[in-house]
Structures are given as C-alpha cells and as structure tokens.
C-alpha cells in the first residue's frame, strides 16, 4: 500500500493510502474534537466538529471522512476553525433542551465536555426550547429526545454491531428525530434485543438506564472495542483498554 506524506499544523507525517486525516491525527495524538465519530462504527461526518482547512481547497473538510493525499497541507486549529466549532456546539445547545443541572449524564456528557473544550461561555443564538418527546416504554431504558444531538451513534451501533437496526432517523431538517422501529414505542418493537449498546454509545443523557438520577448515568464505551477486536482479531482485550 502506498505511503502518503502530508503536513499537519506545520509538522510532517506519513500515512497509508486510504487512511483518513482523523486516523492520522489520532495516531499522533493531535487533539481535535469529535462527536458523531466513534471508533468501531462507520463514519458519517454529521457533526462537522472535526472540520479542518486544507490548503488549496476553498471549503472546510471533515477530518473523519477525508482521506489523506500526497502533499496535503492541513491546518486543524486556526482561529476560524475554533470559532466554527464553538458555533456548532452553541447551535446544538440552542436547538435541544440541554439542562445539565437536572440531567442523568451531568459530568459524564460528551456535549458538556465539548462545550468546555471549545470554550462555550454563553450561547448567543435564541434557544428554541423545542417540544420533544420522551419514550419510557422499554423495560430497561429510556429515550429522551430533548437531549438528543442526532449523532446517530445509536442507529449505527444497533445496525452495524448488534445487527438489529431498531433505531433510525425520521423527519427532515430541524424536525429530524431518532425513532425506534417504524416510529413505534420502543417497548413495542419486536427487533430490540435489549442489549443496551445504544445507551452506552450515546454521548449525552438522551439514552439512559431506568432508575438512574441526576449525574448517575456513566457510559461504558469500552465494550465496543472489546466486541470488535474479538470479532475481527479473535483477541479479548479488557473493557477498560477500549476507553
């Protein structure tokens, strides 16, 4: 496989053909925020947090879906990019009902953590306060759409890893929502195996276990690497290694 050389933030790196910019950055511990991306799931480039500037290309490109090319000169943390990332988090905050103080995922939430990373001091956009529904019909889990950021990790893990495809996206634009089955009550769907993978990959408090209260819902994402390494390499890594 051909080797490509590229420049990221002034330093030279080499990567294998077909690798994404994000893969190279992660290999070399170059920090960049991500939300919809999760190691082990397919890549959708939905959240746009990992956008980078590539010299010679007028538009910004998401690092997670853009493959490396010979001689690429990439900037990952310019003032413009930092401003856009802050805008993305501000828009996510304003279009949902994210009330950290009373959320099950408080202090264990990726959206909250990202708000700190990008320095979101306040949200200038008007909050939409949308009327979103909550589905507590499942015997073990709850889906609170008020806290959903539409990263589609739950959709992908259920389809790609569990093979059940209970979750999907319904509606368009601002009316997009994550639904179970054909927009049935979660508890009524026959396809759900109650494995809980969707709950564990959810970055916020949108999916949580019944019975937990404020700040108690800690997600164990290590399971994904555990399962995928076992399937692909027939090796059993520890849960914590996958974190």
């Amino acid at each position, binding site marked *: 496989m051909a080797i490509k050389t590229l420049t990221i933030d002034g330093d030279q790196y080499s990567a294998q053909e077909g690798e994404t910019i994000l893969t190279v950055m992660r290999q070399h511990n170059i920090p960049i925020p991500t939300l919809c991306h999760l190691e082990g799931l397919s890549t959708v480039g939905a959240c746009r947090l990992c956008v980078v500037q590539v010299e010679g290309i007028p538009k910004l490109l998401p690092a997670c879906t853009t493959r490396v090319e010979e001689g690429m000169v990439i900037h990952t943390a310019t003032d413009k990019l930092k401003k856009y990332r802050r805008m993305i988090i501000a828009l996510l905050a304003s279009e949902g009902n994210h009330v*950290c103080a009373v959320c099950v995922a*408080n202090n264990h939430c990726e959206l*909250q953590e990202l708000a*700190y990373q990008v320095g979101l001091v*306040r949200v200038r956009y008007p909050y939409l*306060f949308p009327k979103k529904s909550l589905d507590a019909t499942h015997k073990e889990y709850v889906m609170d759409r008020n806290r959903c950021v539409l990263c589609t990790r739950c959709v992908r893990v259920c389809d790609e890893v569990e093979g059940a495809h209970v979750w999907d996206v319904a509606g368009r634009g601002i009316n997009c929502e994550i639904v179970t089955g054909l927009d049935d009550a979660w508890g009524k769907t026959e396809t759900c195996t109650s494995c809980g993978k969707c709950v564990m990959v959810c970055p916020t408090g949108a999916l949580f276990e019944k019975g937990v209260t404020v700040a108690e819902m800690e997600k164990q994402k290590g399971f994904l690497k555990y399962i995928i390494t076992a399937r692909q390499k027939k090796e059993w890594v520890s849960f914590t290694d996958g974190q």
Partner: protein
Amino acid sequence: MNQEIKNKLRVATVWLGGCSGCHMSFLDLDERLIELADKIQIVYSPIADVKEFPADVDVTLVEGAVTNVENEEMAHIVRTHSKYVVSFGDCATTGNVTAMRNRFPNEELLDRAYKELADICYSIPNDNTLIAQLCQQAIPLHHLIRVDAFLHGCPPTPDEIWFAINELLEGRIPIFKTQFLRYG
C-alpha cells in the same frame, strides 16, 4: 461617608428567576465573607434591606433567568446603574431549570401551580401588583441586556465566586479558565 467606605467596591446582587441557590453559595464563602467585608460594600441584595437599586454600582451579580416582567424591568435598571454586570450561575447564563417551563403555555403552568397543586384557594392570582406577570418565555440574561462576564455552575462554587470577585477587585473582568467553565 468616610474615606474607607468611599474606596470600597460597590457590589450589588440581584435575584431574578432562580432558586436562590447561587446566593446560598455566595454565603458559603463563610469566613471569607469577613475578609470580603473589608474590600466591598454590598449596596443592594436580597440579603440586605435596601429598597431601591442604587446608582453608580461597580459590579452586579445577577442570579436567575429573566422570567417575568418584574425581572425584565430589574435587568434594565441593573444595566443602567452598573459598570459591570455578571451573569451569576446557570439560570442567568442559559435559562437552565427556570427555562424548562418554556415548552408549556403560561395558562397551563398557572393552572398547574395555582389550581391542580393547591391545597387552599384554588384560583390564579390576577392582581399583577402582587405577582408579576410571566413573560412568554424565560430567557438568559444576556439575551435581554449586555452582560460582561459569566459565572457558571448550578450553583457556582464558593471558590469560583471568590475567584471572580477577586478578579473584579483587581479591576479585571474575570476570564474563567476551563476548570471554571462548567454547566450543571
């Protein structure tokens, strides 16, 4: 007025649509309050008996979201008479718990509070001189007036409040580092 009082920073604290938790956290400064009393003069606060918001305030800490017409009026008074306005806690900064009512129509809210949950007097108070009229939505303070700094948390911890006040005493608008930037 003696010289000592003249040199003190004139600080006000205001309680809009919030639970007073931020003010409780302020009181949790404990023995540091004594030290603070040497440096600042509290010229208006729900914990001081002052009827009117005074002129020429250096710093005002505003707790709570803007949720009724009284809050709106107060916010404008605060802005007019204060050099620096600080959003004090998550309700002032994001709307937080106070703004959770926004998805319900006001009539439904008032019915719930004054009729469904009432033990006596099952009626909605209709005299707006007793209870301020609700705004259509509860909003963060900076969506109504210009705000100079934001003190996060529900509530902000006494250490965070202490840091902010000391920065303001030094004449700086506090810039909160990542460890102080927190929601919830």
